[in-house]
């Protein structure tokens, strides 16, 4: 037990937490934006896979890192568009569409990866994002290594939280997004195109999810593995509920989970002999369920979540 306690004071633990939290932040905020507009996006797992593959492949084929991130975001947005066409424009089941997008996105990623690299037995590597040491700050004890020696993509993730908050709660377009998730008819009656707002929100959200996936192959690791998203997308969906659809709380929730995972890796090394590693690996999934149970009673869902809007429909 004291071992675990000591872990909390090592810079390595905090550095790992901040690293692990980045894809969760992107994914959770992406899902949050979709749901704030009234669209549940269960394509997240597939879209993160697509982003992970697309970004990595871009760099592997000779592109540079940042355009790779942008490429991943664009591909993610494209999948978001697909999801929006089905759920927003054709009013099809958001649950089933999301699952379909996940199945399609993951399998397509694997197909393209194998297509382009048919013979690779050991996954080829790219040169990933380098840690970007912030002058002076990075030399601080613990905090320096944990917070100020990360890659640029991690800083971007942390920056996304206030940006998403500001846009959602302090700009006209954010108000339109939130209102689309509360009462789409009211938005339409004010002369705003609900379908466009929702489509845009789902595309932006999906782009963020894809960047979250790209982070894993381009900043955290340097290769693309099969099954590497491994349920992270679903955890993000749980985190949105845990966060009551608030970006700030989403960051807190994501940090909690990342901390748990970082701790888990370290505990495995020290306690692995006694407790089988599988039980450590189960923790994030079980914790996600627990998190939803804890918050279930308190949260106020966006009232029009899962409710399609049909223009010109006879009431």
């Amino acid at each position, binding site marked *: 037990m004291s071992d675990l306690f000591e872990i909390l004071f090592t810079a390595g633990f905090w550095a790992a937490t901040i690293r692990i939290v980045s894809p969760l932040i992107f994914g959770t905020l992406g899902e949050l934006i979709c749901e704030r507009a009234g669209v549940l996006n269960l394509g997240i797992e597939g879209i993160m896979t697509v982003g992970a593959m697309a970004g990595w492949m871009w760099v592997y084929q000779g592109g540079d890192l940042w355009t790779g991130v942008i490429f991943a975001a664009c591909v993610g947005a494209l999948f978001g568009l697909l999801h929006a066409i089905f759920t927003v424009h054709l009013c099809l089941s958001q649950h089933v569409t999301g699952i379909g997008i996940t199945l399609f996105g993951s399998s397509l990623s694997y197909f393209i990866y194998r297509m382009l690299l048919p013979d690779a037995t050991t996954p080829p590597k790219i040169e990933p994002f380098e840690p970007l040491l912030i002058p002076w700050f990075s030399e601080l004890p613990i905090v320096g290594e944990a917070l100020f020696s990360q890659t640029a993509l991690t800083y971007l993730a942390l920056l996304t939280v206030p940006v998403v908050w500001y846009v959602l709660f302090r700009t*006209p377009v954010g108000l339109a997004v939130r209102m689309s998730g509360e*009462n789409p008819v009211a*938005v339409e*009656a*004010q002369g705003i*195109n609900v379908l466009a707002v929702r489509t845009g929100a789902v595309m932006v959200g999906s782009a963020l999810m894809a960047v979250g996936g790209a982070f894993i192959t381009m900043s955290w690791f340097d290769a693309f593995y099969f099954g590497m998203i491994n349920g992270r997308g679903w955890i993000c969906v749980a985190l949105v509920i845990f966060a009551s659809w608030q970006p700030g709380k989403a960051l807190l929730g994501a940090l909690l989970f990342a901390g748990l995972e970082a701790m888990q890796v370290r505990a495995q090394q020290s306690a692995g002999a006694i407790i089988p590693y599988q039980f450590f690996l189960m923790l994030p999934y079980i914790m996600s369920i627990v998190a939803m149970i804890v918050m279930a009673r308190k949260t106020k869902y966006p009232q029009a979540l899962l409710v399609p809007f049909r223009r010109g429909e006879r009431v």
Partner: protein
Amino acid sequence: MAAAPILEFRGVTKRFGALTANDNISLTLNQGEVLALLGENGAGKTTLMNILFGHYQADEGEILVDGEALPPGSTQAAISAGIGMVHQHFTLADNLTVLENITVGTESLWSWRQENQANREKLTRMIEDYGLVVDPDALVSTLSVGERQRVEILKALYRDARILILDEPTAVLTPQEADRLFETLKSITAKGLAVIFISHKLHEILAISTKVAVLRRGSIVGTLATKDAKREQLAELMVGRVVTRPKLSAIKRGAPVLEISDLTTGGGGSSALKNVDLVIHAHEIVGIAGVAGNGQAVLADILSGLIGNFTGSASINGRELAAGDPRSIVASGVGRIPEDRHARGMIGDMEIWENLISEDLRSSEISYGGMVINGDRARERATEQIKEFDVRCEGPEAETKLLSGGNMQKLILSRALSRNPSFILANQPVRGLDEGAIAYVQGRLLEARQAGAAILLISEDLDELMSLTDRIAVIYHGSLSLPEPPGKRSIAEIGLMMAGQTQNKSEELQGVGHGH
């Protein structure tokens, strides 16, 4: 009066499949006028306004504002042309503030910040100018129905509307609130705005409008100046034939059937019931008047078996009500007509015969051992009920969602009445129906009364309550007044009670009512 009309419809036609909702409509509206659009439910009034506001696109014809053609199918264009609409069902987001609801869409979506200070100042000024009092920072969910309507009107005025459309605005108001709305409309027209007022209530139209256009089955059947219009003439124009609504006949009431005493639900709020007492006898219809959200829905849910969590007692024919158990309640002789026939009454995706067995699925008549459905018997019974209640459909295997509102209500009626219930809960039984269907439903209820049923009629339409009930009670903030015969209290008095501005429950509660 030679000025160009502010608004002109030219040959507007709109079809939904085989149905022509608006047929070649032409109308004009001038500044300062109040045009009443009169017609029964389903005549096409709302459709026409939805075309004007860009929710629908007309199949033929055009609309001119100040002589210029309005781009069809664009709410944005309608708003910028100065058209504002107050929908019958409020279009507000409950979890956002009044200010947010009003300002959404007023600023460029690509602006990086909201001009909250300026917006609030503009809104506060309008609230003062028009006397539409409401707190800009309140969450809409905390507002009363009347306040929500003010927010809707402010929303239109905030965007500099010059033509204000109100769709059945008084349906949810007390008579006094309605009077106050009329005052507001007068001050608005005095400032040069034009108003289109949609209603099917003749007395309102005679009171407020300057011009009346009567719609029937999608066509304009008459346009006349209000001062030349007579009530009977309008009624006949609207319905096209003489439909007499059934009248209450004198009959001696029987023994008590429904007995409620001290019924209370927790949770607080204006819809929680507080010590409700009520007795309804055989051969008697008791009406409940009240503004939506004052507890009538909760009372209906308890009597339907949807809510089982309450204190106090409710019994039917001396037997305690099976709390929270719809099936037992139905079996004990209760017929229920729910408020919303699409959401609660019928399952649109199932066939008619399936919907007609939903309440007694496990009875020995309908299923073997409560396990396997006797489809033959169920279809046979459905065929009988369809015939008895004159439901227009292709047969028991037709899909329910394809039925018209009136036919769907007849199905619900047949399910509720065919087992000769001793108590009938009728919650807004004629809402949204056309005159023919209204007369049919009301006639059936009166037949049931004749046959000895006790009936609780919950309605927002005071005229209906006055003409159809033996006694009327008023519900306000979960408290139910003593029921009195319709002759005993005027509509104005009932209206005051609906607003909580009177000592209800006779003398014993004197002083409880609060002032204005």
